[in-house]
């Protein structure tokens, strides 16, 4: 068990001008479950592969514990990795797959058998040890891949979208199993996913990446409540936050007919920099809205679609908003949801809104 530290680690793939990972600074605590999340091509997998030693680091360094592993080969880093397609050796049985690393390391046979048996018990694979991977179901293969990592008792687990190849139901089930397993083993884990629900539910902390740049790294709660910029605000949370650019006045932002009071500091911050043009970005989550009656200051929204989820309903609509059409998502009580084609009046809950700079998208507090 160990900490993991990225120190301004960068990587530019040959033939590209833009770095895939741009001076990543990240500190992962001992026993922590850190999730790297972001849209495709954001550099999350590359970051993980740099830690694994599968990609060379161009500049900066990576440390596991106190060891500088920047230029060590993968096998010298004491890590185990779970791949998206599991990468099980097809010609070896489950037991051989799980014990392969130990066999290479020259661990005594009895020790290998014992550790494989322990891991198999933990993962409910005892009946399948003699089988070849092709005779297993997707979920079982996934568990073998996990088992192969566990048996090594490495300092760090690396997981590269290990649940992507499972069906939705199994994914939810395995999600909690992995989180519970990690808690039990207490091994530092770096987990890559593009699924923000996975990130929020599994990670102790979540690092959000975009275009090779770390946007924010914080607990799931903090990411949700205090997104550092517009991208994080839009990426975390489903359905996404409603983010609109609104005109800025002396007292705050005017949101249709709703006035959002801002503090003096916020207004000053929003005016900084070029190109702000007296506007500011405000955002509010679908649940931070009220549907109010006509004439009480709500934004009139024409309902395009209603998603009924039982307890809640998500109302998707658009509003004619200062001459341009703006889309809104609002969460309401599932029992008295509006109908398609109806006009509802949406009023953001004052105090639950997020304010971002109009140009650089940084959060303004």
């Amino acid at each position, binding site marked *: 068990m160990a900490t993991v530290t990225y120190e301004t680690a960068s990587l530019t793939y040959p033939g590209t001008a833009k770095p895939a990972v741009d001076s990543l600074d990240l500190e992962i605590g001992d026993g922590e479950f850190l999730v790297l999340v972001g849209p495709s091509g954001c550099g999350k997998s590359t970051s993980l592969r740099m830690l694994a030693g599968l990609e060379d680091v161009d500049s900066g360094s990576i440390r596991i514990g106190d060891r500088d592993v920047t230029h060590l080969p993968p096998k010298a880093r004491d890590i185990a990795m779970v791949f998206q397609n599991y*990468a099980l050796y097809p010609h070896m049985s489950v037991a051989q797959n799980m014990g392969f690393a130990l066999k290479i*390391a020259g661990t005594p046979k009895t020790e290998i058998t014992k550790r494989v048996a322990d891991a198999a018990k933990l993962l409910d694979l005892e009946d399948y040890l003699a089988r070849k991977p092709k005779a*297993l179901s997707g979920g079982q293969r996934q568990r073998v891949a996990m088992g192969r990592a566990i048996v090594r008792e490495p300092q760090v687990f690396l997981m590269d979208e290990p649940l992507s190849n499972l069906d939705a139901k199994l994914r939810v089930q395995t999600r909690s199993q992995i989180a519970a397993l990690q808690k039990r083993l207490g091994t530092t884990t770096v987990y890559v996913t593009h699924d923000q629900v996975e990130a929020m539910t599994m990670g102790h902390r979540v690092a959000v990446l975009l275009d090779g740049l770390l946007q924010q790294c914080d607990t799931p709660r903090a990411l949700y409540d205090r997104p550092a910029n517009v991208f994080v605000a839009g990426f975390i949370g489903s359905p996404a936050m409603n983010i609109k650019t609104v005109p800025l006045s002396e007292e705050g932002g005017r949101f249709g007919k709703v006035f959002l009071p801002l503090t003096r500091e916020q207004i000053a911050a929003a005016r900084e920099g070029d190109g702000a043009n007296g506007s500011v970005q405000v955002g509010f989550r679908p649940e931070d809205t009220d549907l109010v009656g006509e004439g009480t200051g709500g934004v009139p929204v024409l309902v395009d679609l209603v998603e009924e989820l039982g307890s809640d309903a998500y109302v998707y609509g658009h509003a004619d908003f200062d001459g341009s059409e703006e889309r809104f998502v609002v969460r309401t009580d599932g029992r008295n949801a509006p109908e398609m084609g109806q006009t509802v009046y949406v009023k953001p809950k004052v105090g639950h809104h997020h304010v971002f700079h109009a140009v650089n998208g940084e959060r303004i507090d």
Partner: protein
Amino acid sequence: MTAATEHVTPPADAPAPAAPDAAPVPARRERLNPLNLLNSGFLVLWGIFTAFPLLWAVMTAFKTNREILSLPDCRAGWRFWVWLWCMVDPPTSLEFDNFTRAWTQASIGVYFINSIIVVSGSLVLTMLLGSMAAYALARYEFPGNRIIYFGFVGGIMFPVFLALVPLFFVVDNMKLIPVVGQYITLNSYGGLILVYVAYSLPFTVFFMSAFFRTLPTELAEAAAIDGCGHFRLFFQVMLPMAKPGLVSIGIFNFIGQWNQYVIPLVLMPDPDSKVLAQGLASLAVSMGYRGDWAALFAGLTLALLPLLAAYLLFQRQVQAGLSAGLLK
């Protein structure tokens, strides 16, 4: 649920992802339709064409010379069919003496052993070097990779006759190399083995590198993380996965090298170092003079056996290798 049933039924997990796709494959036999009949008819005809000469040669190998030569000379009209029947007419008694004569008097035994030594040496080397080269070309990027690859591919279209004369002088001059020279020059096993390997490598590399390219990169990465060095990665992970391809190309090379005639004709002129193909050719000449057709066919049958055995043993893998990569 008892332990026994649990073993049979898959757990709550979803079945393997491939299972739903595999389901609609029709298990029952298709109904007979004219096209199928034509297909099967053609296949039967093809089978007869292929099997008949083999069958004929093998049966003739067991006949006495008298039996072989006492065929009725009636090759026209309906009598052609009588003649044909006589050809496939089973021998009245099994003349194993034919094989003994072929093996000893006609030196087929010596040639056979020469062939086995040369082909087993060259086959092992071809497969080892070929798959190693193919692996490096398929999975590692280095300057010159493409040039080397196309060099190999270019070797495929090089007709052997073009190289025959220079090859003779090169191999002949090998004797000038001190110490090892005598083992790799004309009339030596080593010389022929090296030439066979060089001759077989292009297609082997071409075929195997295409095969290695289809293997997932993640497996190599997983192995690297598990602690494999390059050699262990190749021999313990990649090579076992390439087994279907190795078997196909192995049989292909085996047949090619076993039946090779022109190269040994040039490089192994000494009677004691002839290989089987040369031996059979000279057998055909000498037996033609002596009229010992039975021994000739016995020799042919002997030459056939290793190929037949290889096919029968690896038939399944050959098919798997040829269709590998088509379906994923």
